[in-house]
C-alpha cells in the first residue's frame, strides 16, 4: 500500500526494485502487526491488578533460539534476493552505442552527446543544458562527472540514482520502457541552489528520436 505512492515506473530494472520494495513492505508490515498485536495484548492482559503476581521467569532458551534463527533466515534470503538485482543494475553495463555525458555543476546538468562519430571530444559533440533525449527501449549509458561538488542524478520514474563525484567518471545505465517527459532532480545537497537543480529526461519513440537527432545534427 505504501507502494501506491511510488511514482510510475518506466524502466526495465524498475520492476525488480518495486518487487523487492513490495516484498520487504509485506514482510516488515507483517512483523510489525505481529509485534504490535502481541504488545497491545500483553499490555491489556497483564495490566496491574491487586493481588496479581507476575510470572517469575528469566527466559526460555528454545523460544529465544527460534526468534533468533527465523529473522536471520528471512534477512539472509532478502540479501540473496537483493544481490542479483543490484549486480544487474550497478555492475553489468549493457552493450550500447548510446553514451551520454552528464557533467554536474552548481546548479545545472550539462549534457553532452558524442554526435554521429560516437566519440567525445570531437567537433560534432553537442551540449545541452538540463535536457537528456533518449529513445524508448534502448539501453543508455550515462557518463557522470562533477565539476565542483557532489551531485546525484535522480530519475524517480526510472528508479535511477547515482552520485556524480568530482575527480571521477562514473558509468551508469537505464533503459526506458515508455515515452514521455520525466523529471531529473539533483538528490545530493550541493549548495544554496540545490533545490530547483533539475533537468528533464525526454524519452522518445524510435521515430521521434531519429527526428530529434536529424534536427540536432542535420549534416549527417
Amino acid at each position, binding site marked *: 500500500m505504501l507502494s501506491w505512492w*511510488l511514482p510510475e515506473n518506466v524502466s526495465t530494472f524498475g520492476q525488480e526494485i518495486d518487487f523487492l*520494495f513490495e516484498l520487504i513492505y509485506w514482510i516488515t508490515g507483517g*512483523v510489525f502487526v505481529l509485534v504490535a498485536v502481541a504488545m497491545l495484548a500483553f499490555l491489556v492482559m497483564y495490566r496491574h491488578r491487586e493481588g496479581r503476581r507476575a510470572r*517469575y521467569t528469566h527466559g526460555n532458551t528454545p523460544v529465544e533460539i527460534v526468534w533468533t534463527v527465523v529473522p536471520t533466515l528471512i534477512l539472509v534470503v532478502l540479501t540473496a534476493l537483493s*544481490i542479483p538485482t543490484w549486480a544487474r543494475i550497478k555492475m553489468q553495463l549493457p552493450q550500447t552505442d548510446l553514451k551520454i555525458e552528464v557533467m554536474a555543476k552548481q546548479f545545472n546538468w550539462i549534457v553532452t552527446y558524442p554526435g554521429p562519430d560516437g566519440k567525445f571530444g570531437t567537433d560534432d559533440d553537442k551540449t545541452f543544458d538540463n535536457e537528456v533525449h533518449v529513445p524508448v527501449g534502448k539501453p543508455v549509458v550515462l557518463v557522470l562527472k562533477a565539476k*565542483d561538488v557532489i551531485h546525484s542524478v535522480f530519475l524517480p520514474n526510472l528508479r535511477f540514482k547515482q552520485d556524480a563525484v568530482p575527480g*571521477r567518471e562514473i558509468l551508469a545505465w537505464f533503459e526506458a520502457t515508455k515515452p514521455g517527459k520525466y523529471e531529473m532532480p*539533483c538528490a*545530493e545537497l550541493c549548495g544554496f541552489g540545490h533545490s530547483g537543480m*533539475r533537468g528533464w529526461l525526454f524519452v522518445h519513440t524510435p521515430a521521434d528520436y531519429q527526428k530529434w537527432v536529424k534536427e540536432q545534427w542535420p549534416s549527417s
Partner: protein
Amino acid sequence: MSNPATHATVHEAHHELGFVRTYIFSTDHKMIARQFLFLGLFMMVIGGLLAMVVRWQLAWPETPVAGLGWLLTETEGVLPPEAYNMAFTMHATIMIFFVIMPILAGAFGNFCIPLMIGARDMAFPRLNMLSIWAAFLSGGVMLAGFFVPQGHAASGWTAYAPLSAVATYQGVNWGQNLWLISLFILTISSLMGAINYITTVINMRAPGMTFFRMPLVVWSLFITAILLLLALPVLMSATAMLLFDRTLGTHWFLPEGGGEPLLWQHLFWFFGHPEVYILILPAMGMASEILPVFARKPIFGYRAMVYSMLAICFLSWMVYGHHMFVSGMDPRVGMAFTLTTMVIAVPSAIKTFNWLGTLWGGNIRFTVPMLNALAFVAMFVIGGLSGVFMASTPVDIFIQDTYFIVAHIHYVVFGGSIFGAFAAIYFWFPKMFGRMLNPTLGHLHFWPTFVFFNLTFFPQHIVGVGGMMRRIYNPMQYEFLQHLQWWNVFITWSAFALGLAQIFFVINFFWSLFAGKKAPLNPWQSNTLEWIAPSPPPHLNWGDRIPTVYRGPYEYSSPEVAEDWFPQNRSLPARAAARH
C-alpha cells in the same frame, strides 16, 4: 571480589562542599550528570525551534515565517535557501551531538554508572569535570557559529566534501570552520567520558557486583563507551583534515590537488554508523531497565540482551557502507555491506522479542516512565523495520536521500533515543533531584508527544516513497512532488503540535524541580543499587559503607520473598550465612 574503593574513601563520606566546588568546579558525577542534562535540554529547545523553521518552509515555501520577521528583515521574514540549509544542518547537528549524546551518554552515563554499580564516583573525577567543561566550550563554539558573517554551516550534518571543504562552494566560511572546531572539541569531551566510563565499570564495581549482575543500562553505557572510544578518533581526524583543507590549503578531499571526496564519506560513516548505535544503545538499556521494574518481572533473556548488545557493538563497524551505496563506491563492496546490514537487524530483533517476553505474564503498572519506555519499544520497531528497506541495495537506489530516510532516522533517534531519554528522565528524576515529577503533567506530555510524533514522522515515509528528496528548499519546484504537498502541510501542523506538547515537559521539569513532591528513597520499588542511596544521593553516594551485592538486578516477583521486589543488596539470613 576485592575492590579498593570499598575502604579507600569511607572517612571522606561526610563533608560539606562550598558553592563553587558544588556547582562549578564539581567533580561529583551526579552534578556533572545534571550539568550534561541541562546542556542537552537547553540545546533541545534550539534544535527543536530550528526544526519548526524547516517545517514551515516545507509546508508553505517562500512565505514569511511567522515570528521571524525581526530576524530576516531583508526578506521580510521569508527564509532564503542559504538559511534553510543552515537550519536543517544545525537542527541535526545540535540534536545528535548536543542533545542526545549529552543526555543519554553524558547525563545518564554519569548518573547511573557509579550509583548502579555501587561506586562512590567515577574512576577519574577530575577528567570527568574536564569532560563537561569541554562539552560546554564545544557548545559555546557551536552556538557562536550562528553569529558569524555568512551564517552557520549549511552543508548538512554529514558535511560532504567538497561542498564542506571549499568556502565558495557553500557560501559559508567561518560557520563551517567553527562547526568543525566545535565537533573536534566535543570528541575530546566524549573521549574523556568514554575512558572514564570504561575504567569505572571494569574497576569499581561493589563487592558482589559481577559483570553479569550489572543492570542492563550499565551494560549499554559500557558498550556505548567502547564505541565512543573507537569511533570518535575517526571523527576527530576527519574534522581536522577537513579544517586543514579549508584553512591550510591541504587537499585531502579535493580532487584538484589529488584528494578524494569519497574519503570524507568513508571516514565520516566509519564514525557515523557506530554513532547511530551510540545514540540508541543507552536508550535500549534504559528500556531494559524500566520495563522489568513496571512489569514487576525479571528481564526476559538477560544474557541474550547482553550478547545482542555486544553483537551490535561488533557489527556496527562493518555496516557503514550502506550509507554510500550510490556514492560511486565500488558496487561489489556494496554487496558485502548488504549482508552485514541485514544481519545487524538480528540483535535488534532479539532485543525486541525479549522486551515483549518481559511484558508477557507481568503485572504492568502504567506509570509515565513506563509509557515512554513502551513507546520506545514500539517506535524502535518501526525504525528498525524501515531500515530493512535500505539494507536491500536495489531498493536503496530509489529511497536513498529521500524523506524515507528522514522518517527512518527520526523513528530511530526520536522514537528511539528521545523516548528513551524521556523515560530515563521521568524514572531517575526523583533520585537525581530528590523530587517527583508530576504524573498528570507527565501524561499530558506523553500522549500528545506520542500521537503527534507518529503523525509527524509516519507520513514522511509516504512522501519519501513518492520520491521527495531530503534537504530540498522548496518541493513545489518539482512537478512530480506537487500531489504530495498536502502531506507536507499535514506533517508541519503535526510537527507544531509535537513541539507545543513539549511545553508540558518544560513546566513539569521546572515546577517539580522546586516544588515537586519530595521523593522517597525508592519510589518505584526497584531493585538496583541507586535506590538505596538518599534522594538525591550525597557526595560519595553511600555514607559509611559501600553496598554489597547478592543477586542480579531483575529479581522481581521472586518466590523467595513476600514482596514483589528483591533489592540487589538485601541479604537473606540463610544465604548470607552460607556465603560468608
